[in-house]
């Protein structure tokens, strides 16, 4: 479980996050949704400790993550997997080396075990025949999937995904969503996903937090999205005339 407690963040005089309180549960896919620029990425980076919050605390189970020393932060980091919005694959390494990298750094498994694990992870994200390719030789969606494979290779306890299915076609997007959902439940992972994809929201939104202009505007789950009267949520979900029609028909 991860808990954000009264998080504030500003860059210079721009206030990006204000008074964020959210509980992210283990074994659930916790979604952070919101329009572009709402502060989703900044919040995620605060949760993993890449940005210090201006004030507020982040708890990993009952450990106050924001006040840990470097060494303890690193111990927690070994249980963290993260997919970046821009994938952040190392472009001087092949796909295999990218996915193996966390294992090379932290385990003394044999090469065979490592390769097996790499193949297993690639299989789970539905990719094959790319071991020796470089990231620049893959399509954007394939890079995303390699990024996910790298994030789950060490069986993390905490998984962070910044827009895992932006740039993917609807079918692959669902495969990825389902994959993340499955491994979350299988391994009781605390998974936090940034997204503005409504399909994901409706498919895997166990817990949903809506950010609007840096504030928490709504919290709930996928079942409550359609029935909520929250205006910000309604504006966000039913942004397109098509979906508005669907809603009216549904009602």
């Amino acid at each position: 479980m991860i808990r954000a407690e009264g998080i504030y963040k500003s860059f210079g005089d721009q206030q990006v996050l204000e008074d964020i309180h959210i509980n992210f549960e283990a074994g659930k896919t916790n979604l952070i949704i919101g329009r572009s620029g709402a502060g989703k990425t900044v919040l995620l980076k605060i949760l993993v400790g890449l940005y210090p919050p201006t004030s507020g605390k982040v708890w990993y189970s009952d450990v106050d993550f924001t006040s840990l020393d470097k060494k303890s932060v690193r111990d927690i980091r070994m249980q963290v997997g993260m997919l970046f919005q821009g994938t952040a694959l190392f472009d001087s390494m092949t796909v295999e080396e990218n996915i193996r990298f966390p294992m090379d750094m932290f385990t003394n498994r044999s090469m065979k075990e490592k390769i097996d694990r790499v193949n297993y992870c690639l299989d789970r994200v539905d990719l094959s025949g790319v071991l020796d390719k470089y990231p620049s030789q893959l399509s954007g969606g394939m890079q995303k999937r390699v990024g996910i494979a790298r994030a789950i290779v060490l069986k993390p306890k905490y998984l962070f995904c910044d827009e895992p299915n932006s740039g993917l076609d609807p079918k692959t997007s669902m495969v990825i969503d389902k994959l993340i959902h499955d491994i979350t439940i299988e391994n009781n992972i605390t998974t936090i996903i940034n997204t503005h994809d409504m399909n994901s929201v409706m498919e895997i939104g166990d817990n949903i937090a809506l950010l609007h202009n840096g504030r928490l505007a709504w919290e709930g789950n996928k079942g409550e999205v359609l029935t909520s009267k929250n205006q910000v949520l309604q504006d966000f979900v039913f942004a397109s005339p098509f979906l508005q029609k669907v809603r009216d028909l549904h009602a």
Partner: protein
Amino acid sequence: MYWRETMRQMNDIGIGSLIIVALISTFMGAVMAVQISYQLGGQFIPRYYVGYLVRDITIIELAPTITCLVLAGKVGSNMAAEIGGMRQKEHIDAMEIMGVNTSAFLVMPKILASVLVVPILVSLAAIVSIVGAYIAAVPTGLFTSAEYVQGIRVFLEPWNVFIMYVKAVVFGFILAAISCYQGYFVQGGSIELGKASTAAVVMSNIAILIADYLIAVLLTS
């Protein structure tokens, strides 16, 4: 992992800079031979002194300093751009998340490689420069082969060679450390990356010149 990266850096810095270092040192020696002969010409100073002067100026000052100023331009800007690019593409963040101590992982191999390889390049520069002087002056008759060889063999002070290596190690450390620092803390986009790369070169050069002076004062008094 660290060792493999250090080897890669040593290869980049060393092999990658051989040609430019050789080229510059050849001309450095050649120009010195011509100009020192000119300055001493017509005076009652034995001509073999040219060889002696070329050798010592090369060893004490020009080989380490000129080589490292050039390397700061070539290697330093490269290091700043490489690390800065990784910062901007979130590679450093990704490594941090994986629990890697990125400052050590990215910077140490570069500093280590630089401190090991720069002295080798500087030795090479010194030898090539002394040969360059020979090539420029003997065929054109500024002094004879025998005079030059006599010159470069007299009054040889091991201490001067020691000074050269002290400078090489210190300058190698300076250029790698400053360049990595500039890259590691870069923000923004490609314009900032360009600026960081330039800053790496300028700051390294200034720091090298200041260190040059300090070492000169410390080790010759």
